[in-house]
């Protein structure tokens, strides 16, 4: 009795990296995986081959080069708990949707901060944008923590192969922190070159592409599809993003992830504005009903908005 409870307690403890939600999900969804616990085969977990990973360990290896994404819901579904720092990450988004900075800004700002703390030289650690759809607004990014000196943009207007060459060269450049690229369809050989360059040089490459109708294979380590959530439900005030993980180094994820993107700096401004609008309309309604007294509104309105 006593020993049984002890063994029961030690088994979940053998997976220190797993968060609560993941453990629930793993227990509920992938029952077949249970037989392959690392605790059952200690000799298997001792084998460490670079480039070879075990399917059950996809959340464990936190020691790798990982950029935490800053979105908690996304972090617990990404292998290692964040964007892989040494891989090609392919992201698809619909036309006219430009959620790049909303999604990546926390990770990039954290990466830049970490880099600046570890190194004194301010000229290192560049962020290269290859063929961005618009020019980034440097003061806004500076306010978010990315120094304007670190930004560099390669103008579009070349062929996709040329721009892919620029990406590869940037990945091979030792002063580059990360590369963001906006390229059209690329052949698989080029994608493989980019993935190899990213993996060998230990720099992440976020490749943004338009959504494709039919899924096709890609050598990228992580593939996501973004969609804008159009219907504003009652619980979710702000419209956000819906992220579907098409490919990851881990089990298949069927449910898409919902991101509210509520950490934007201007979200409080929006909320304040919405509250002000609501209050104004309430006051107008009351005015229309003629139930307003001269002394009431100053005390009544905060109560009304809270109710």
């Amino acid at each position, binding site marked *: 009795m006593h020993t049984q409870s002890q063994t029961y307690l030690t088994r979940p403890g053998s997976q220190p990296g797993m968060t609560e939600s993941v453990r629930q999900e793993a227990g509920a969804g992938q029952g077949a995986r249970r037989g392959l616990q690392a605790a059952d085969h200690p000799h298997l977990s001792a084998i460490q081959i670079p480039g070879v990973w075990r399917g059950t360990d996809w959340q464990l290896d936190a020691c790798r080069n990982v950029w935490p994404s800053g979105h908690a819901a996304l972090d617990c579904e990404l292998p290692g708990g964040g964007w892989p720092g040494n891989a090609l990450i392919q992201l698809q988004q619909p036309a006219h949707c430009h959620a*790049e900075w909303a999604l990546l800004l926390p990770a990039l700002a954290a990466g830049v901060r970490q880099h600046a703390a570890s190194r004194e030289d301010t000229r290192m650690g560049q962020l290269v944008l290859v063929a961005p759809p618009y020019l980034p607004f440097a003061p806004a990014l500076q306010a*978010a923590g990315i120094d304007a000196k670190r930004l560099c943009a*390669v103008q579009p207007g070349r062929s996709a192969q040329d721009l892919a060459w620029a990406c590869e060269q940037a990945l*091979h450049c030792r002063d580059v922190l990360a590369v963001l690229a906006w390229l059209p369809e690329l052949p698989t050989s080029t994608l493989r070159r980019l993935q190899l360059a990213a993996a060998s040089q230990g720099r992440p490459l976020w490749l943004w592409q338009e959504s494709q109708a039919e899924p096709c294979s890609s050598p990228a380590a992580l593939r996501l599809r973004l969609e804008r959530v159009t219907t504003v439900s009652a619980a979710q005030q702000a419209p956000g993003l819906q992220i579907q993980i098409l490919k990851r180094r881990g089990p298949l994820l069927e449910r898409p992830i919902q991101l509210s993107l509520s950490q934007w700096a201007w979200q409080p401004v929006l909320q304040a504005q919405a509250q002000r609008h609501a209050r104004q309309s309430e006051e107008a309604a009351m005015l229309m009903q003629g139930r307003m007294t001269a002394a009431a509104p100053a005390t009544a309105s905060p109560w009304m908005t809270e109710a």
Partner: protein
Amino acid sequence: MGSAEHWIAWPLACLSESSPVPESACWWALEFSPRVALLEDALLMETSMVQRLWGGTEALLARLDSAFAQACQAGFHESEGGDVALQPLRGQGGTAWKALARLRLQQSRPCGSVPVPLSVPESSPHADALPLWTLSALEQHSAVLQRLGCRCWGDVRSLPRAGLSRRIGAKALRALDEAYGLLPQPLDWLQLPQQFELRHDLGYPAHHADAVLHAAQPLLRALQSWLQARHHAVLALQLRWHHDLRRIDGQELPAWEALAIRTAQPTQGMAHLQRLLREHLGQQRWRAPVDMLELQALETVPWAAEPLSCLPAAQGQSPSDSLAWHEWVERLSARWGEEAVLMVQPLADHRPERMQRWQAAAPLLQSKNPAAARGATLAGAGAQPRPQGTHRGRQPGCADPWQALWPPWLLSQPEALPVQGNRPQWHGPLQLKAGPYRLESGWWDAAGDASANAQTGAPAGLAARDYFVAYNAVVGHVWIYRERVRSEHLMGMTASPASWFAQGMYG
């Protein structure tokens, strides 16, 4: 001190036949010692002063051998220098003449056409045992001396000096004294030109970029050895080429055309410059064949070598296999033009389109380089500029609503939006979420050209706008503004031009 001199001699023929630019063939030696001279058919170097610098005699000789082999092989890219690698061809000695004599002895041995003295088993025979023909001053009188029974230098020295001086002249005896180190030997040392400017007559017409680049190789190598000898590094160079043809297809052709190349970081290695040169030459139009090239170093600075780390380099971090930042920028700029790679400079203004300026990165890096270096030393000495930077960067969650509303994407030009039913449209009707935030700025720009732009109604500088955050399901959150109606439109009741513009995107 003079007795401890150590001379090394190399055959000049190997060097000069490998290099098509003869005057630069011996510059490589000046990297090791300043005392380098040309004597008859050999290159001579005195190393007693620099042996400690290069880590002793053996280490210095090993480096010199490899440098000599490199200089000999430079002309031929095939595996030509097998014999050089097999046995280093050089002579050493206490004086210049001795080193030269031993070199000649060594040169004569493999071919065997010259009569070899009977007993010289060791590689460097004593000076007395050197044969007469190895000293050119004695070789002229070899017939006389051989009849006197002299075979080597020692025999000549043992003869009575006065009589010999009458026979063969004082000049030959002075050379012998110099060879034994009894008299100082005047030599004119090899000196580098103050400015690098080297011309290379091709001797064949070069019709396209690859041929010109190939022909420029010896010039680049000469530049490299010039830089290494002077301990300088190059920042800018100019390649000029000469056309023999004066006119082609009825068009006048300039005799000389030039190409200037700049780099942000001073360098001694030619790999990066050569790559830039290839990109630039590949974009030239070669209308006529080139028969002469001239390379000129426009700007050089004293060379400060990379500080080496005591720690082993991390994997993938070693500087040899990866590009430096300026190399990447310059490579792309060379291939696609400078406007292809942009970097941003923040400007102090309130109008969003004038808060930043994206400009070509390569000239920015090259112009900013001295200032950046100065800034680095400043930051190291007293941290005056740093706190300001951190203060500005330390406000991610800013309280100012105007700053909080800045979008991460900015359209290069504000895009006029159509209006339907009093609402701006951009892939569908837009819903205003926040605002208005009023901006009125730039009158100082408008004052000058207000009269010129009066009829268009949109002066270039003045911005009187109300900014909003708007949303629709297709484009997401966008940053739009409405041009405020100006008083003359109100008074004149004219139709105001488009008043809604999109300027930014949040995603």
